[in-house]
């Protein structure tokens, strides 16, 4: 997607922008998926955190957590 077409997803415009913001976390979707999965930077394991949980890996107590990569395909030009 060219940079010019990108729209910053906002809570208000999220629903109306249609396809462009598909998959962006709108207001109501956020509540239903309140448990998020992260990847621990120290041990590489999956960490599930709920809303008010302590930000730390339960296996190794590592405090650096990474967000998971999108499950969607990403297209690049080989240039």
């Amino acid at each position, binding site marked *: 997607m060219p940079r010019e077409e990108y729209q910053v997803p906002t809570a208000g415009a999220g629903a109306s922008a249609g396809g462009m913001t598909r998959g962006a976390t709108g207001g109501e979707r956020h509540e239903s998926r309140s448990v998020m999965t992260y990847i621990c930077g120290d041990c590489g394991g999956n960490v599930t955190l709920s809303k008010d949980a302590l930000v730390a890996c339960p296996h190794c107590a590592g405090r650096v957590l990474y967000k998971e990569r999108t499950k969607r395909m990403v*297209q690049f*030009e*080989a240039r």
Partner: protein
Amino acid sequence: MAPSAEELLRRNTVGINKETVSNVASTDFPGHFPGEDHAFSIERFRSAFSVQFHRNELNDASFSLIGIDASLANAFRRILIAEIPTLAIEDVYIENNTSVIQDEVLAHRLGLIPFNGGRDGIHNFLKWYKKPEAGEDPYANSFDWNTVRLELNVTCTVNPDAAPNENDPLKAYNHAHVYAKDIVFVPTGRQVEYFSGDNAIVPVNPDILIAKLRPKQTINLAMHMHKGIGADHSKFSPVATASYRLLPLIHITKPIIGPDAEKFQRCFPQGVIGLEKVTREEASKSGSGYEGHAGEFKAVVKDSMKDTVSREALRHPEFEGKVKLGRRRDHFIFSIESTGQWDSDELFLEAVKHLKLKCKKLEQQVINMVQ
């Protein structure tokens, strides 16, 4: 009044002096020399032109074009680099990439890998791909005759058979390195007819390193290849290098004898200057410069083509006035290294074909202009 052979050689030589070059512009055009006819005619070109092959291998060809103008030789070189089409990876669809190499860098690396496949399929079956306009279906123009699909799916795992203290990642893990040979060609539609068996589309060099992985890291992507030209992106250029140089000329004007001859030989690359014994006949001739030197070594030019024209001989005072360096203006030593999708000699013929086509187009335009 035809010019003498000496005069012709002078006109045809670019002078190479200690710190300058002289006589760089060609003068064989009409009106430059009064009373001489230098108009271009195809018969005259044909009788003066010749091609000599020095080396002809798949990925490296070297040959001389003799009796051609620099404008034409340069046109061939530029067509070789920028206008002969090849097939290369253009779009990369990344499903997953957890390696340390970033998506866009990975895509760029993939694009630069040269591929080879059935020549008939690549040259005749595959046609140009037109990029869909913005808003159009992104795959609207993708067909089996303009798009080749490749896939790369690699996951690194721990090798259970490795020694516990193994330090070499290639032995400790499976797929620690991702190579070009891991790319899989997926034929679609009529591509099965053209690209099966030995004609399959494969990387020219299977051992090109694409990425390095560690256990649990994975690369999972698909690629689309299209035809393109080097003017668009250098990954489409069919040559690694395509260059020419002018034939070096070394003219020994006064004899170089004895230890000087050996020093003179060392001023040039190996094989350029040879040492010969001065014969009794030469030594007995007065005014030749060899008097009384019978049996000593003298320097002779053996193969000036091997010279790199470093001008080292011009630095030493003992050779001053004894040697003249130059280059032949109409002798082009081409060197073409193919990246593998074409044969090197085939590439030059293709360049000639392209130039011919351009001339035909221009001719039609001129005709239209006159009408």
